[in-house]
């Protein structure tokens, strides 16, 4: 069990841009904690503070009761970090990359070499062990970067957007490895792939504008929202005609589809009404995407939703 506690944690860059604002977080968890948020939400800043790289403007952060500023050296014994955009050194091979990182962490030469090969096997890239990193595909390079810290056996792994740039198959490969690895380690990852958080995380934090909006398991987040189903209607006018009695907030996406987040009871009634009227729709349990949009009022990436109105 790992405990991460942040109290009134703030970070302002150049006295202007506030990346974190009085963040109070208490994570007491095993497995994988996923911090999700839009670009600029403060995810990387939080990881950099927790991984002893960045000084907060104010507040404190502790990992397993160790202060990340005052006891940085002890914290570093526990953690390993893959920064966002980390790339393995181009003039080295995957085996050499992992091995040298392990040497930095205090492994002996032969032990590091052995562990590097074992990890490459675990990631299914042992055939690439002796190829130069610069000759690997982007996805393979990302895998090597993740494999490097996984090899360290550190108790806590910080992965800042670990699967960005990976193709869907490689992404799922990494998920599989992280799922295995979480049995004995705590993984703190940031992502803006909501399906990644849904698939992997035991606990999820939603960060926006440097503030934590929600924290908990996916089930808890769903419960706290009070809406358990998402109905998507593919005809804006029909949706309005059939569902206006609900008085619910209707969200219209750029694609013209209408979305409603409703309770189970309301969902069943609305579904019957839509079926009777012959209107095409889909009904699904509320996804993390829905929760994120509900709380942040913006989609996780881009400008996906154009208008929002209540009639």
């Amino acid at each position, binding site marked *: 069990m790992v405990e991460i506690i942040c109290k009134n944690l703030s970070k302002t860059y150049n006295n202007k841009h506030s990346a974190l604002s009085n963040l109070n977080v208490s994570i007491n968890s095993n497995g994988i904690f996923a911090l999700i948020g839009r670009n600029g939400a403060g995810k990387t800043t939080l990881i950099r503070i927790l*991984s002893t790289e*960045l*000084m907060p403007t104010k507040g404190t952060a502790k990992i397993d009761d160790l202060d990340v500023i005052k006891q940085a050296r002890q914290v570093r*014994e526990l953690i390993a970090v893959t920064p*966002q955009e*980390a790339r393995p*050194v181009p003039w080295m091979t995957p085996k050499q990359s992992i091995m040298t*990182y392990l040497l930095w962490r*205090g492994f002996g030469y032969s032990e590091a070499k052995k562990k590097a090969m074992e990890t490459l096997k675990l990631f299914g890239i042992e055939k690439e062990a002796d190829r130069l990193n610069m000759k690997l595909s982007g996805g393979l390079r990302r895998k090597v970067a993740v494999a490097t810290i996984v090899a360290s056996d550190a108790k806590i792994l910080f992965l800042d957007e670990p699967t960005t740039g990976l193709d869907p198959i490689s992404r799922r490969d990494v998920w599989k490895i992280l799922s295995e690895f979480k049995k004995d380690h705590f993984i703190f990852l940031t992502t803006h792939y909501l399906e990644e958080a849904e698939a992997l995380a035991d606990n999820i934090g939603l960060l926006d504008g440097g503030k934590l909006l929600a924290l908990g398991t996916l089930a808890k987040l769903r419960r706290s929202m009070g809406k358990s189903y998402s109905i998507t209607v593919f005809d804006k006018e029909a949706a309005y005609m059939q569902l206006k009695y609900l008085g619910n907030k209707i969200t219209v996406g750029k694609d013209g589809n209408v979305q409603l987040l409703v309770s189970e009871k309301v969902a069943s009634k609305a579904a019957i009404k839509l079926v009777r009227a012959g209107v095409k729709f889909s009904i699904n349990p509320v996804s993390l995407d829905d929760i994120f949009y509900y709380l942040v009022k913006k989609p996780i990436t881009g400008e996906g939703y154009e208008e929002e109105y209540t009639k």
Partner: protein
Amino acid sequence: MKRNILSEVLASVLVNAVYAMRNFPVVLINLLLTPLSFLIVISFVSHGALIGVAIEGAFIMTMVSNGIGLQGDLSHLKNDLKLQDMVVSSPTSAFTYMIGMALSEIMYALPSLIILSVLAVLFLNLGILAALVITAVLIMIFVVSLSLGFFLSTFTSDVIQSWAFSGMLSLLLSTLPPVYYPLTYIPLPYRYIAFISPTTYAAEIIQNITGFVSLSYSSVIIAWAVLLAFTIVLLFAAIKRSRWTDI
């Protein structure tokens, strides 16, 4: 896991020197060419008269360019590859990282130092004292350059900027000052500018001990004192003032 300082130092040497040299041997040729080409040009232009001074200059340039080169290397590892962020959050300390990186720069300097040592034996009549003085001065000038490189690398935000600084500093410290030629070759009003550079003092001490210039006892003491001051101040700045982390 218990810290293993030898492993930590070895990691830096492997990453920054051994694997780069093994996988891209062309870097060695590049590092050899710069000091040796100046040596050749000065020797030809002076019809061989300055070959001894030029060998000493090439020694200094080798140490300066490899020391300053640390800046570009560190900046690349830090800003482009984010490797330094991974090391910062590991049990490795800034000091061991710097020692490892310094040793890696010595590895780059080795081929050039070996060739120059052979030339020194052939063209310079060195006694043990002179050899010891040259070694001490080269170590000091290497520490000066490394410290400067390490210090600046923590402030530059991208590798293009770093390479520009590296090239500029290398030029300002080892090409323009009287390193490949005696100080007296500079016309008097401009001669004083040369004293801004620590390499001027290094060259003066070496040229004096090998008999190419004749300095008064007090001038030699001053040269040693200034060189020592440069070494201590820049080393202190590198250790204490560099932003290894933002903590």
